[in-house]
């Protein structure tokens, strides 16, 4: 079963990592690289992407004529999607364990960030024995 693990960052301004000390940024990047390689080597990684910052994001709606209307993001947003992993695992517990590992990524001073990782199961096609 596939799960999407979404890493949320607080606020809608630039990523906070920009204000960390250099050693802490380095440790965080090295952790993320190791984490990705480990999931990939275990055959659990389906995909992972990092997203550019909230300040670059746009909200888009269709106007009456179908043309896009773009808007900046809401400044009052409390959380913002910074990136995600999709993993293919046998149990939801395994997905939670992977999420917990990501949550504990090192932050300032090397202390675990314990950030909230939203875990959502990815929907699948119809079951093999499904008959209408």
């Amino acid at each position, binding site marked *: 079963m596939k799960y999407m693990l979404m890493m949320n960052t607080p606020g809608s301004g630039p990523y906070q990592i920009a204000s960390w*000390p250099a050693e802490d940024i380095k440790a965080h990047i090295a952790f993320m690289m190791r984490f990705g390689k480990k999931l990939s080597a275990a055959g659990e990684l389906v995909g992972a992407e990092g997203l550019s910052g909230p300040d670059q994001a746009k909200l888009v709606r269709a106007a009456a004529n179908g043309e896009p209307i773009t808007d900046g993001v809401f400044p009052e947003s409390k959380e913002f999607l910074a990136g995600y992993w999709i993993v293919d695992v046998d149990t939801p517990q395994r997905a939670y364990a992977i999420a917990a590992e990501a949550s504990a990524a090192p932050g300032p001073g090397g202390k675990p960030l314990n950030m909230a990782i939203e875990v959502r199961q990815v929907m699948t096609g119809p079951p093999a024995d499904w008959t209408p």
Partner: protein
Amino acid sequence: MIPRLDNSAQDRLRDLAPQVLSVLLRRYRDFGGCEDAVQEALIAAATQWPARGVPDSPKGWLITVATRRLTDQIRSDTARRLREQLVVSLIPADEQIALAADAAGINERDETLDLYFMCCHSALSTASQVALTLRAVGGLTTGEIARAFFVPEATMAQRLTRAKQTIRSAGTAFPELTPSDRAVRLPAVLKVIYLIFNEGYTPSGDQLYRIDLSSEAIRVARLLAQLLPEDPEVGGLLALMLLTDARRAARTGPNGELIPLDEQVRSLWDQKRMTEGRQILQRALARGATGPYQIQAAVAALHDEASSTHETDWGQILALYELLLRFDDSPMARLSRVIALAMLDGPAAGLRALDGLESDPHFATSHRLDAVRAHLLERAGHRDEAIRHYRRAAQRTTSTPERNYLLLHAARLNEHGSPVVAP
């Protein structure tokens, strides 16, 4: 263990792809069908040759197998019955019995060349031009191309199918190009090859199962240089890619982090590639028709020759960028000129020149201007302003390694420049 072709044998096999495809196209015209057939013949060769040995005439073998696949495909597909009649009618009666497998026509070179032009047809999107070139000219499988661009194989297969449909509906099954047509269309081909190279040069994601696009671009350019040995810009592009690729091992650290030119360990540069690039460049320049790729290759050669950033001949690099602007007045060329100017006349002169680029709409959403400004401000001793621009550039770049580099640089500057860091 299943025997496999080694890498150089695979490269040689793929080198034959465009030649085989052009032979098939001359006979059957149907680009989509011929392309699929060649692809299957290449796969058959990769699986059969290691066990049975490479045939005496590899090209003849591929043509025979691809032809068989093409006719099988047409026969088995009842919906294509009409096309079968068409194919049969296209083959001269004597060839319907036995195809002269390896018969080289007088125009074979031109026809192989025309494949490049077809793949870079102006009706196609850039992404399709790139994909089609890698498959039809480069002989890569759809799966390999898909992995190289981190898209699902089905998406890439669809992109290729649509590209072939576009070519068909544009009515240019296999155009008869004159030498002057080719000259006009050549820049589009060179651009696609350079795009492929740059895509491979930008480190991103999981490199493990990724086809090395930079090496593919170099291989495809070598094939093109064999077809057009006299063209100075083809030589220029090949030289530019070799001279740039020579620095590859020094360009990234163990965690994929970017290492800029002035911090690279120059002993890691590939001397063999540099020598080859320089020789190709010299031959191209000797022909006397200077162009943008030769100029950029000359800049790369000057970097490769220097033992440090300080030893680099920035005066000559500045002159080369000024020459480049006469051919190609692009925002990136103008920015490169400013960087060279700043190395020569100091950061203050560079910052003044940078102001002139501020109004260019190309830079409105780009991080490049901020990154260069940050660097010049740092050199001029304006630490806080430099940090601000490094961070702004980090926010704007879409390359993860580059963002990490910019963030780290800003953080280091923040720490080392100030005696007490506020908690």
